């Protein structure tokens, strides 16, 4: 459990002149359930995009599985916070979930039967069985969110990046998703961005707080047990669950 899965070294990101992340260093280890909290606009989504290599850092080094993010992508599952898509695009729920299997298949190979079974299973897991043939553009907010989770799970990634996975998910499903994540973390590493303070205290093993202003901690249920000195100003690391 001491493998470094994600290593950020003095990473800075600025877009169009505004600094979003500044000299951020972070290590996430194998089979950790790592939480990221922080105020809106704190840079959490940007951080995940840096780990995926979708956002190039202005400065600093990023390693995922010890290599360049762009190379390690196929081993990562990702639930984006928002999906910018064309509502009219003709694509069904099951086709979208299958996209999660794309990295396991090369060119010239369509999705196999196995892929389809896994896709159906993933949809069942998020309670979307029966909606396979629905158009993605017509889904409700929560249904879409569930779909995104299923798509990330179906690829059986080694590292799972979740950006507020339970936003607009109903309480019942929320609970079962957290239960699922708890069982998954035995076989993979999970990094989750969330504003759900309850989930942080119950499920997550370590928490980083991005750009937290002081007020934040008062409301949240995070107990600031330990502030790791190895991170610079904008990140606070809080340990939980007495693990490690």
């Amino acid at each position, binding site marked *: 459990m001491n493998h470094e899965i994600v290593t950020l070294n003095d990473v800075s990101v600025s877009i169009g002149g505004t600094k979003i992340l500044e000299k951020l260093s972070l290590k996430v280890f194998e089979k950790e359930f790592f939480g990221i909290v922080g105020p809106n606009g704190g840079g959490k989504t940007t951080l995940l995009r840096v780990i*995926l*290599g*979708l956002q190039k850092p202005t400065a600093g080094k990023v390693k995922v599985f010890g290599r360049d993010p*762009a190379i390690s*992508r*196929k081993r*990562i599952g*990702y639930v*984006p916070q928002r*999906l*910018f*898509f*064309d509502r*009219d*695009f*003709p*694509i*069904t729920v099951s*086709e*979208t979930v*299958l*996209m*999660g299997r*794309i*990295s396991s*298949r090369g*060119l*010239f190979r*369509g*999705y196999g039967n196995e892929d389809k079974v896994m896709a159906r299973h993933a949809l069942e897991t998020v309670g979307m069985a029966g909606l396979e043939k629905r*158009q*993605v553009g017509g889904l409700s907010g929560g249904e879409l969110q569930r779909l995104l989770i299923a*798509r990330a799970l179906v*690829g059986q990634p080694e590292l799972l990046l979740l950006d507020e996975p339970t936003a607009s998910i109903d309480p019942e499903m929320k609970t079962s998703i957290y239960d699922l994540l708890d069982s998954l973390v035995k076989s993979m590493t999970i990094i989750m961005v969330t504003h759900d303070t309850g989930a942080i205290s119950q499920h997550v093993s370590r928490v980083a707080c991005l750009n937290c202003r002081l007020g934040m901690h008062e409301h949240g249920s995070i107990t600031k047990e330990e502030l790791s000195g190895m991170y610079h100003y904008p990140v606070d690391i809080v340990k939980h669950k007495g693990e490690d």
Partner: protein
Amino acid sequence: MIEIFRYEFMQNAVLAALLASLACGIIGSYVVVRKIGFISGGIAHAAFGGIGIGYYLGINPLLGLIPFSLFSALGIGLLSKKTKVAEDTAIGAFWAAGMAVGVLFIGLSPGYVPNLFSYLFGSILTVPRSDLLMIAGLDLFIVLVVFACYKEFLAISFDEEYAEASGVPTMLLYLLQLCLIALTVVVLVRVVGIVMVIALLTIPPAIARYFSRNLLVMMVLSSFFCAFFTLSGLWMSYIFDVASGAMIILTAAVTFMIVAAGKKLSGNN
């Protein structure tokens, strides 16, 4: 009616219609779901610049056609992705620039210059046998590439960022897709003319979309619609003795309006 098939031109026209329908159905579906109906005109007119340069340099202008249209497709793709310009703007810029380059080089070419525009215009009734082979080859190529990259094309068209995050070479595939479109456009423009290509890449897939929301089914359906419109348009143009291209387009457009209106009236929203 049957007598007309004695003529080679009619046999060729029917074959051209059928072969073109396959390419139009497949590529048109991508064009419609990506909302870049503009691209057929854009690539054809951008390629005109290549013809002008070719003429000026004394090369056979037709030789410049396919490379230049591929180059325009790549230019459009790179301009829109790398510098974050909307695709339609990039297409418009290439459209206009290509035409301008063409006109300028024609102006610079000494002497009386033939009508270079005509390289971009054809008529379905005048397709020679050799061109049929060319479209058949194109069809085969398109079917193979789309078969090989179907799931990737779907992924990059719908959610490019996720495809990128899954390790799919999105830029490459996007450019490949544009090149397929460009090839289809140049080849079909030569054979059936620019106006018909705009129509056939737009209307049949738009109708197909009313009947299926699956891209693959859309492709198949719009190939069928395309074949139906071209054949029935041909037939009507024979009956009424009017221009074939115009009749084919009109058949397609009228059907489209009827289907759209019908769906609107019968639909419950």
